[in-house]
Each structure stands twice: as C-alpha cells, then as structure tokens.
C-alpha cells in the first residue's frame, strides 16, 4: 500500500511534467498528435490523483496508524464519516484534495463538448498543467500525505473535536472547489491573451466558470460561518480572521469581474481591466493559501506551520509575473478596441462604481490583513488588526455597494435621462424614506441600522419593479398569466434574473448582519439550581445539572426550560464535552431559532454545589442570513443552468487552428 500510494504521487508528478512539456512542444510545432498525447496525460493525471485519494481514504477508514497522517488526524473510535473527512483536516490531505479537484476541472475543460475544436484548449491545458506540476511537486516533496512512522502507534491522536461537525465535512470541500475553480478563468484569460482572441465565446465560457467558482467560494464561506456559529460557542459567524479574509478577497474581485464583464460584452471595453481582475482573483487564492500555511499571521485556523506557504508565494510570484508579461505584450491589441460612454448616468457607469467599491473593499481587507506585517517591517511593532477595524472600515464601503446594487437595475444602458430617473426612482425612494422614518418612530434608531435597512428597502423595491415590469411587458405581447409570464421571462434570461435572485440573497444576508450586529443582547450569569436568568422576553429556568458518557467522551449538561413572555418553549440541554483524546473541552450550544431571533445558550461553567454559569445571547435575524445564503445558491445555479433556452455557452464556432 505504501508503495502504491506514493507511486500515485510520484508517477503523477512525472506525468504532469511530461504532459506540460509535450503540450507546450505540441503548441510550438503545431502537432496535434503531441497535443493528444498531453491530453491523454491529463486523464492519467486524473487517475493518479483519484487513486491517491482512494488510497488515503482507505488508510483513514481502516485506521492504519503507521501512517503519520492517519495517526495525526484520526483515532479508532472516530465515526467512519469523520475518519474519511479527516482527509482534509491537515496540510497534506487538503492539498491532495485540491490537486484532485484541479485534475477533475482539467478533464472537464479539455474534454468538454463545447470546447471541441477550440484552439484555446492546448493553452488552457498547459496553464492548468503547470498548476498540476506545482501541486504534485508539493505533494511529492513538501507536504507528503503518505509517510510511514518508525513505530506503529496503538492509537491515533484523534481529530480535533471542533472539526467533528457536519459543517466541517463540507466547508473545506466547497472552499477548495472555489479556490481551484478560479484557476480556470485564469487559464482562459491567459489562453485568450496568448491567442490574441478575447471574443464572445471567451467571455461566456469565462463568465460561466467564474460563476461556478464564485458559487463554491460563497458556499465555502457560508458553511464556515454556519459552523463557527453552532460549534464554537461564541455566537458569531465571521471574525475577519486572516484565513477568512483570504477567501473573502477573491470573492470580492470575482464578483467585480462578473459585473464588469458585462460592459466588455456590450461595449467591447474594459478588456485589460477584466483580465486584471481574473489575474488578481487567481493570485489572491494562492496568496490566501500562503497566509494560511505559512504561519506568518496568527489565525484561529491553525494549520501546522511549515515552509509550505513559501512555495505558494513563489508560485504566485511566478504566475503573476508571467501573467503580467502576457498582458503587457498584448496591451496594444486590447487597448485598440476601447469604446465610448454616452453619459455619466448609465448602467455602464454604475457597473464601474460597483467595481470601484468591490475592489476597494478587497483592498481594504488586504491592507488590514497584511498591516501587522507592514507595521512590523516599518517600525518593529506587530499590531493586531482585528474585528473592530474591519467592521469600521468595511461597513461604509459595503453599504455603499448595497446602494449601488439597489440603484443599478433601474438605470438604463447608454443613458438615463432626468425624466427616466424621476420615473424610476420616485416611488422606491419615497417608500425607502417612509420606511426609514417608520423605523425611527418604532424605535430602531441606530444610524447604521436605519441607513442600512433604508438602502435594503430601496433595493427590494427596485428589484421587485424589475420583475414586475418584465412580466408586464411580456404579458402585453403574449397575454400569458402572470405566473407563466414570470416563469418564461426568467428562464429566457437566466443570467439577468439569476443575478437578481443573488442580489436579493445578499440583501437578506445584509439584513441578518445588520440585525445581529446592532441588536444582539448577551448576559453571563451564575445561578443556583431552580433559579432563572431573564433576558429580554426570555426566562431561562435552570433545572438540572448532570453528566453522561458517550464513547470515550464525558458530557456535562444542564437542563434548562425556556419561557418566552411566560409561554413555555421547551426544555433544552446545553452541554460541555470533555474528550477522551483531546485536551480542550468544547461547548455544544442550545439554539432556539425563529425568524425573528435566535436564543443561544452556552453552559459555561459549574461548581460542586450545583451552581452553573450560563452565557445567554439573543441574536436577532440570524435565520435571514441562512435564507439569504440559500437564495444566493439558487440564484447562481439558476444563472448557470443550461436549460432549453440557456444560450449561456455556445459551442465554439470560431476559426479552426491547426491544434486544438
């Protein structure tokens, strides 16, 4: 097994190098046979990565503790699902997963029906293969997944209990799919530049892949937040930790690209800018990995510190330099086709402002994340840049972004006249102002909340009007029923209406964030048996403290009965779990969730006489966050779904070159 597993990695590396060379050679000599050989190498590489994955899954599932990785991240009593998912608990395994996804994507591109006959394929393949070489090199020489220990331990060290949660099964997988996914638009961009062909087909394929990567990145962050909320007993979902920032930055730049590419599509402008956004997004995924795996910054996402990050930094450096070189060498070609704008007030301009804010937000995150290093380098003081900083700096930028999002759908392409603006904005603006006044009257008086919700009201109305007008226009011509008209309207323009659904999802998430950040209540109280804690409308009666044993873990739990306005909601059991093979205990919180708010109860401590300390929180509108997240997924899927009317990705019909 040892030989087999390692062979998959080293043979993989050899194949990757071979394929890269043969494709490059094939491109330069225009020899289709060589290209085909390289493509065969891709399949072989995918097989290698799959076999390596299967080997590691097998070793983990059968608890072969003589392997360092198995020993480090599992133990024999671990449920089988967590034994398997321990594959991405550590450095080497998670990079193997990354590599596997990369080879999977490669195959999907190189052998896609739509890409058949496309001269970009060899270039894209070569660029992705260069990534493949890098990852197999890392697996072969830096973070090796299959290392044998000198002695065979009887028992493994176990998996960090925090990671034993359904959220953790899926969070890394989606995040890596997003990270790897951004390599695809990058490869497309580079191929297009090299071929001097940034055409319609390129835009559509790149956009489609960017949406897919974007969706996975969003999912990765959402699952991460959800996991933090239920598992960490802290009651929050986003801490602006360097690792979170690392995945948020490419998300912002990819979002910017998805919008600005529309200007390229319509007006054949912003080509350089769009390609730069793709390069930056891709580079940021590598930069994020460098941050996480190098230990240069303190993070709660503890990956063992190693020199691994350095390799990523070097790889990123090379990739960026080469990409910039290619971009510069094609600069004149791209610049030549620069178009014009008709007016300051137009959809085009609003997309540019959107880009400004998104990239600005990404820069602010970047700057905050690296500032400790900058400060240390400049004056020798390593400062912490934490939550208060990011909340203060990002809030105004992202809120302005929401405003642009609210206004943009109502602006016309080319030029919005005053008459047109008045017609489109009078009702939404008046309603938003009425909403804000009502909020103040009803007691919502915090400035951020009033402005934020006001902007969201505007957003909801403008988006509603978009749907309403579309349906009305359709009905005028077809006399369909409203539902049919809405359905047909949407499936005939998937990208536009999918995008609007995503906007609505973001609005819901923002409502949740504003509510939970501004109106949360907390208390920490020590009470005796039979006593109660009051918070807002809730009364929590502390009734029993006991302990039980589950496997090798000891669990201390409290029975609490919760009343809301005197009405009994039920009995709940917040727990503290002490693990047989892990030093740190963890809290299993009791969450009573409703659309209005979550009641979050943590059993914090207890004494021999039965007194117990609870942390009780009321987190308003948490469910709105999860509903919004769901809408984002629906919207993004709707936009990329290749339905009957989906003209999202046409088959390549351009000029045939000698090699493809």
């Amino acid at each position, binding site marked *: 097994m040892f030989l087999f597993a390692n062979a998959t990695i080293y043979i993989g590396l050899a194949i990757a190098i071979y394929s890269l060379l043969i494709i490059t050679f094939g491109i330069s000599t225009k020899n289709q046979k060589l290209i085909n050989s390289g493509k065969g190498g891709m399949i072989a590489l995918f097989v290698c990565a799959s076999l390596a994955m299967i080997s590691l899954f097998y070793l983990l599932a059968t608890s072969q503790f003589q392997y360092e990785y198995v020993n480090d991240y599992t133990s024999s009593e671990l449920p089988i699902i967590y034994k398997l998912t321990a594959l991405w608990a550590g450095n080497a395994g998670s990079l193997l997963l990354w590599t596997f996804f990369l080879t999977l994507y490669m195959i999907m591109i190189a052998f896609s029906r739509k890409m058949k006959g496309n001269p970009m394929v060899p270039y894209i393949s070569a660029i992705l293969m260069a990534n493949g070489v890098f990852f197999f090199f890392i697996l072969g020489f830096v973070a090796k997944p299959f290392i044998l220990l000198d002695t065979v331990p009887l028992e493994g060290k176990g998996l960090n209990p925090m990671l034993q949660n359904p959220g953790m099964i899926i969070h890394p997988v989606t995040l890596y799919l997003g990270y790897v996914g951004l390599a695809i638009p990058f490869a497309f961009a580079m191929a297009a530049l090299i071929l001097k062909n940034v055409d319609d087909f390129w835009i559509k394929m790149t956009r489609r892949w960017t949406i897919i990567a974007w969706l996975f990145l969003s999912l990765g962050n959402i699952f991460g937040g959800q996991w933090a909320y239920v598992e960490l007993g802290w009651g929050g979902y986003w801490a602006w930790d360097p690792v979170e920032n690392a995945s948020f930055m490419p998300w912002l730049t990819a979002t910017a690209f998805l919008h600005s590419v529309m200007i390229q599509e319509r007006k054949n402008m912003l080509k350089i800018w769009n390609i730069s956004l793709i390069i930056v997004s891709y580079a940021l995924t590598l930069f994020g990995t460098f941050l996480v795996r190098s230990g240069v910054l*303190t993070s709660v996402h503890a990956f063992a510190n190693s020199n691994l990050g350095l390799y990523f930094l070097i790889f990123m450096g090379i990739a960026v330099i080469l990409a910039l070189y290619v971009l510069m060498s094609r600069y004149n070609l791209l610049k030549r086709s620069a178009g014009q704008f*008709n007016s300051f007030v137009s959809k085009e301009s609003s997309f540019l402002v959107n880009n400004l804010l998104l990239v600005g937000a990404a820069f602010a995150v970047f700057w905050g994340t690296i500032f400790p290093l900058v400060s240390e380098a400049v004056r020798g003081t390593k400062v912490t*840049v934490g939550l208060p900083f990011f909340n203060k700096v990002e809030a105004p930028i992202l809120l302005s972004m929401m405003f642009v999002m609210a206004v943009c759908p109502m602006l016309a392409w080319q030029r919005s006249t005053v008459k*047109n603006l008045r017609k489109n904005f009078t009702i939404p603006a008046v309603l938003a102002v009425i909403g804000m006044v009502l909020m103040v009257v009803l007691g919502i008086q915090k400035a951020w909340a009033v402005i934020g919700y006001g902007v969201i009201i505007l957003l909801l109305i403008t988006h509603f009007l978009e749907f309403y007008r579309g349906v009305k226009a359709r009905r005028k011509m077809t006399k369909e029923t409203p539902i049919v008209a809405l359905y047909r*309207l949407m499936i005939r323009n998937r990208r536009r209406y999918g995008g609007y659904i995503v906007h609505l999802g973001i609005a819901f998430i923002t409502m949740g964030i504003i509510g939970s950040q501004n109106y949360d209540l907390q208390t*920490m109280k020590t009470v005796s048996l039979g006593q109660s804690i009051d918070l807002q409308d809730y009364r929590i009666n502390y009734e029993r403290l006991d302990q039980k044993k589950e496997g090798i873990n000891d669990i201390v739990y409290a029975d609490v009965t919760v009343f809301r306005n005197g009405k009994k909601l039920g009995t709940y059991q917040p727990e503290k779990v002490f693990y047989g093979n892990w030093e740190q205990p963890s809290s299993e919180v009791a969450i009573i969730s409703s659309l209005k708010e979550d009641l979050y109860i943590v059993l914090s401590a207890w004494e021999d006489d039965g007194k117990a300390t609870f942390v009780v929180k009321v987190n308003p509108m948490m469910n709105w966050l999860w509903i919004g997240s769901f809408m984002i997924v629906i919207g993004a899927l709707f936009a990329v779904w290749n339905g009957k009317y989906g003209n999202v990705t046409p088959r390549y019909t351009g000029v045939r070159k000698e090699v493809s």
Partner: protein
Amino acid sequence: MKNKLYLGLLVIAFIFQGSFIHVDAKQIDYKSPEFKAVAQQFACTCGCGQDHYECDPNTCNLTTEFKADLVEMMNKGWDKDKIREYYVNIYGEEILTSPEKSGFSLTAWVLPFVVLGAAAIALYFIIRKWVKKKGTEEIVTGYENTDEEVESEIFSSMIDEERKKYL
C-alpha cells in the same frame, strides 16, 4: 475564583467608601455592552486569537485575571479610553485589537479610503474622457427608458424563439 473576585470588589468598595468621590462597586456582567466596549479593545495573548471580551474565562487563566482588572478599573470610574491608555503605556500597541488612530498606525485606517478616493477621482476622469470622445453630434441610439429596453429584449427573444422553430 468568583468568590475571590467578589471579595476583591468588596475590598475596593470598602476603600472607596472613604474617598471624596463615592463610587459604588457593582458586579459587572462580563457580557454586558459596557464591559464589551472596554474589553473588546484588548487582544488576549493566550493564543486563542480572540479579544478579552470573547475569550472564555473558564478555559483561559489569563483572561480571568485580565477581566478582573478591567472590572476593578471600571469600578474606579475609568472610562474605556483611560483604561486603554493605561494598558498601551504598559504593553504598547500590541495589546490592542485594532491599530491606534495616530502615528504610523493611522495609515491602516486611512489608506483604504485614500486609495478609494483616488480611484474614484480617476474613474470620474476616465468616464468623462469616454463621454467626451463620444461627441455630441451623434444620435443616441440607446433606449432612454428601461421599460422599452425590457420590452425590446423580450420581443427579440420571442422572435428568436419563433425563428428556431422553423430552422
């Protein structure tokens, strides 16, 4: 530990009883907004990566004592800025969860907005250039109204659909 804390508070209360300014020592909820405002400023150095408001006193000894000290100062009537100043004088800026708004650290706060502002100005000039380039003599062929735009889009998609049927 709690008892010790209460005892400490009691002692402080006793001492301050005789002072000119009478301050009541009160029990402070570690999760109250007033405590949050103070404690959130300081990073816990136990390796948890959290601030002293979030760090769990049951698993971290460091924060237990730190929190007690904060309560003591709050009971003395110190406000969050004074407490902040006190700790920065002892430990330096490293103890804070966000950089100071002075000296070199000010750049952390200001730079994102400076860059954003500069980019906004640049954007303004770029759009102006593009609009100017267009000239005035050309007839605006675009839609002046979103209603028409939506209608025409739907109309063309329907024509497209019909056309496909007969191809």
